[in-house]
C-alpha cells in the first residue's frame, strides 16, 4: 500500500513538530511526520531547556527575539511549562567583560535589553553563589526555559487535532526524487509518497541528504549533561560560566541540569565518559560549594548538530524541487524551534519568509561561502 501526502517531515524532534504546527495553522495540514524512534528521542529530550536571544549576529538576535514571543504565546495556548527566568553570563576576567559589553550593545540595537551587571547584582539574583574569581556578568532578562517533554507532548496533541499524521518507529532510509522533483521517501516499513519533503532529522539529516546527493556540511558533536535531585527553587536564571563553557539551570521540577564542553570528536557514537561527572562537579562546586552534598541522578549525551558558522540551515534546497531543510542548529535548536518552524511554513506556503534575515539562513550561504559566524555558543 502506498500512502500519499503533500508533505513528509522526517524527524519528530522539536523542529519537525513546530514546522508541522505552523504549517497546519496556515491550513496546510496534509502532512505525515516520520520518526524513527519516539517523538523527542533525538537531541530534543536531551537538551538543557534554555531559551535566549543574547547572540552575536543580527540573524540570531532578531529571530530568537521573535522565537521568545512565540514560546510565550504557545506555552500559554498549548499549556506547557515556560518561564522567563533570564540568563546570567558569568565572567572571570576583564577581556570577557569587554567582549560582552560590545555584544550587549548589539543586543540592545535589535531590541534585546541585556546589560552588564556587577558581582553584587549577581549575588542579588543568585544569593547562594560563590563569587570568588568572578568579575561581573551579563544579564539577559528576556531569556528563559521550557519543558521539552511538555512542549513535545502538547504539540503532538495539537497536531493530531489539526489532522497531521504522525508515524513513530519508522526510519526513513532514502529520499526519492525523479527529474529533480521530490516523489517521496522509502522507509523500513514501506514507501510513502509526497510532493514535498522537509528534512528535520537533526543528527540524521546529513545521511538523509546524501541519499539525494545533497551535501550538508554538518558535524554531529557529542555533548554531555547531567541532572541532580530536586530542590525548592534556589535561583531562576540559567547561569553560564563562560570560562569553562559550562551552564547550570534549575529546571521545571527543581532539579539542577548542567553541562560543559569536554573534548569530543565529531561523528562519534554517544558514549558516557567516566571523567565528565567529576569535571562537571568541579565547576559546579566552584560556583556552588554546597553542591558537594547534592546527588547526581542521571547523566547522558546528545548531539549538537554543528554547521560551519553555527547558524542553522533553514529553507528550500534549490537543486531539488520540493526539498526543504531545517537543521544544523549548533546547540540552540530547542530555543529556535518555534521561529524555525514559522520560517519553514512561510517558505513552503508563501514562498518567502516574513523576516528578511531568515533568507540568509538557506543552504546557499554555505555553498557560496557567505558565513555568518556566531560566537556565543557553549556547553
Amino acid at each position, binding site marked *: 500500500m502506498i500512502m500519499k501526502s503533500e508533505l513528509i517531515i522526517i524527524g519528530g524532534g522539536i523542529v519537525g513538530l513546530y514546522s508541522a504546527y505552523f504549517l497546519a495553522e496556515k491550513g496546510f495540514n496534509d502532512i505525515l511526520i516520520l520518526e524513527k524512534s519516539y517523538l523527542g528521542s533525538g537531541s530534543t529530550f536531551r537538551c538543557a531547556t534554555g531559551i535566549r536571544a543574547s547572540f552575536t549576529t543580527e540573524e540570531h538576535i532578531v529571530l530568537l527575539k521573535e522565537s521568545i514571543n512565540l514560546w510565550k504565546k504557545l506555552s500559554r495556548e498549548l499549556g506547557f511549562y515556560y518561564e522567563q527566568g533570564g540568563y546570567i553570563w558569568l565572567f572571570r576576567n576583564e577581556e570577557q567583560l569587554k567582549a560582552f559589553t560590545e555584544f550587549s550593545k548589539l543586543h540592545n540595537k535589535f531590541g534585546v535589553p541585556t546589560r552588564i551587571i556587577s558581582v553584587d547584582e549577581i549575588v542579588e539574583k543568585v544569593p*547562594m553563589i560563590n563569587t570568588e574569581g568572578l568579575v561581573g556578568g551579563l544579564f539577559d532578562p528576556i531569556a528563559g526555559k521550557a519543558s521539552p517533554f511538555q512542549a513535545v507532548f502538547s504539540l503532538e496533541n495539537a497536531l493530531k487535532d489539526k489532522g497531521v499524521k504522525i508515524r513513530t518507529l519508522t526510519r526513513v532510509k532514502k529520499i526519492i526524487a525523479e527529474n529533480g522533483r521530490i516523489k517521496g521517501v522509502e522507509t523500513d516499513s514501506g514507501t510513502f509518497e509526497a510532493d514535498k519533503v522537509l528534512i528535520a532529522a537533526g543528527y540524521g539529516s546529513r545521511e538523509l541528504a546524501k541519499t539525494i546527493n545533497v551535501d550538508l556540511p554538518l558535524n554531529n558533536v557529542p555533548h554531555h549533561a547531567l541532572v541532580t*535531585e*530536586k*530542590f*525548592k527553587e*534556589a535561583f531562576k536564571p540559567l547561569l553560564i560560566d563562560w570560562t569553562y563553557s559550562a551552564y547550570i539551570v534549575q529546571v521545571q521540577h*527543581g532539579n539542577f541540569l548542567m553541562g560543559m564542553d569536554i573534548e569530543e570528536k565529531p561523528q562519534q557514537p554517544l*558514549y*558516557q*565518559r*567516566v*571523567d565528565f*561527572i*567529576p569535571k562537571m562537579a568541579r565547576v559546579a*562546586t566552584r560556583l556552588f*560549594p*554546597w*553542591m*558537594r*552534598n*547534592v*546527588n*547526581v541522578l542521571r*547523566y547522558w549525551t546528545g548531539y549538537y548538530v554543528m554547521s560551519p558558522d553555527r547558524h542553522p540551515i533553514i529553507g528550500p534546497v534549490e537543486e531539488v524541487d520540493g526539498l526543504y531543510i531545517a537543521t544544523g542548529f549548533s546547540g540552540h535548536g530547542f530555543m529556535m524551534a518555534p521561529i524555525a518552524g514559522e520560517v519553514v511554513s512561510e517558505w513552503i506556503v508563501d514562498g518567502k519568509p516574513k523576516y528578511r534575515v531568515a533568507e540568509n539562513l538557506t543552504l546557499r550561504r554555505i555553498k557560496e561561502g557567505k558565513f555568518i559566524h556566531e560566537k556565543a555558543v557553549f556547553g
Partner: protein
Amino acid sequence: MPSSKKIDRRIWEHPILEFKRGKEVRFYFEGEEMKGYEGESIAVALYASGIDIFSWTEDNRPRGAFCMIGKCSSCFMVVNGIPNVRTCREPVRDGLRIERQRGLPDIPRVTRDEEGLESKTLETDFLVIGAGPAGLSAALKAAEYGLDVILVEDHFRLGGQLVKQTHKFFGSKDLFGGLRGFQIAEELSKKVSSNPKIKVFLETLAYGVFKDLTIGLASKKGHYKVKAKNILFSTGAYENYLAFPGNDLPGVMGAGGAQTLMNEYGIRPGDKVLTIGAGNVGLIVSYQLLQAGAKVKAIVEAMPQIGGWVVHAAKVRRYGIPIYTRHTIKEVWGNNRVEGATIVQVDEKWQPVPGTEKDIDCDLVIISVGLTPDTKLLAQTGAKMKWIPELGGLVALRTKYMETTVPGVFVAGDAKGIEEATTAIVEGKIAALTAVLRVLGHVDKAVEERRQLVQYLEQYRQSPLLSRSRRGIEKATIES
C-alpha cells in the same frame, strides 16, 4: 512533635535470635534527644523509637520505612543539614541532627569538605559489584586462585540479603547446610575481610558503566575509576510493589523491609500484621513476625492456590492464621500510619467481587509480591537483555559459566534472575572461576572445579519445586 518518647520497638527476647547491639549513641531528632545503637542505621534507630513518618511528599503525604535496603528513597531525611540522605543506609552516630523533609527540600545548608577526597584510577583482575552471597563467594574463589579482587558494596556491612535470613539452609556442609543465613553471611564476610587479595570498598556505590567498561565508584571518601579485566554484577534484587489506595502510608512495607528491621536489627516492625502474597517470602516473613512477637491477622493471595511451599504454609497454619486465596488488598487507611485495611475477593478475571470486602484490624501491611533483578547497572554494559517472567523480569543472557554477551562481564545471584542464596553462592564461584581462566589461561583445577559446580547446579534445579526458575534459566542460557 515526636510524641513517641517511650516507645521501644526493639526485641529483647527472641526464640532463635540474639541481637548483639553496639555501643549506645545519642542523636537529635527534630531537636529532641534520642538513642540508638552503633551498627544501626538512622532509619532503624528512629523506627525503633516509634518514629513512623520520615518525610512528607510535595502533596503532603507521609512517608516511612519501606524497603530498608537503599532501593526506594522512602527514607530520605535531612541529616546534619544535608537533605535527601537515605537514612536506611546511613549509620547512626553520636550527635547527628536529623530532620524530616516537607515537600521538596531546601538546598544543603552545609558544604562538605573537599580536603582529603581521593580521586584514583584502579586496576584489577576482578571487580565484584555487590557483596551478597554471590559476590562474597565469587571474591573468595577468585582470590583463592591468586586474582586481585576489588569488592564494592553500597551498604555499610557485607552480606547482602543473607544477613536477614534466619532459617537453616539445606544441603551439604561446604554449601553451609545446617547454618542459618546470617551465620553464613558472617562466615563469608570474615573470610573476605581478612583476605589480602581482596580490597573491600564499603559504603561505596558503583554508579555507572562508562566508555571501555570503566566503572565509576563513589563514596564519602572519594571517586574511583576502575578498569577491570573481569566484572561481576552481583547486585541482587529489589522488591515489587502493588498499586492500591494508601500504599504509601507508613506501615505499608516490603517483606524485605520488615525482615531487615526484625532479623537484622531486632526491631518489631508492627504488632498486627496483614501479609499480601503467600509465596515463600510472604509465608516465611509471616512466620518470622510471629517469632518476633507480632500477631499475624491474615495472609492474602490473589492466586487460587498458595504459591509457597507446603512446609512453610503448614507452619503458619499451625498458628491458626487464615490464608485467603483469590483475595487481594483493596485499600489501606490510617492517619499517620496504617490503622486498618480492606481485603476483597477476586473473580477469575482478577476483578474484585463486590460485597466480599473484609476489614482487617492491623498496623502493618507487608507486601510480598516478588522481586525484580537489579540489572540497571549491568544493562549499561550493553549486555543483551531479555524479558523472562520466570526470573522476575529483565535479565541478561549468559552462558552456563555466567558470562554475558559482553566478554568478561558476568552476572550471578538474584541479579541474573530471582532464585535463592545457595544458587547465588554457587553461581558466584562459577563466575569467578571463569574469570580465573580468562586471566590465567588454562588451569586444570579451576576447569574441574567449575565443571563440578555447574553439574551441582543442574542437579539442584531438578527439584520439581524449582521447575519455574529452571524454565527461566533455560531461556536465559546461551551457548558458551
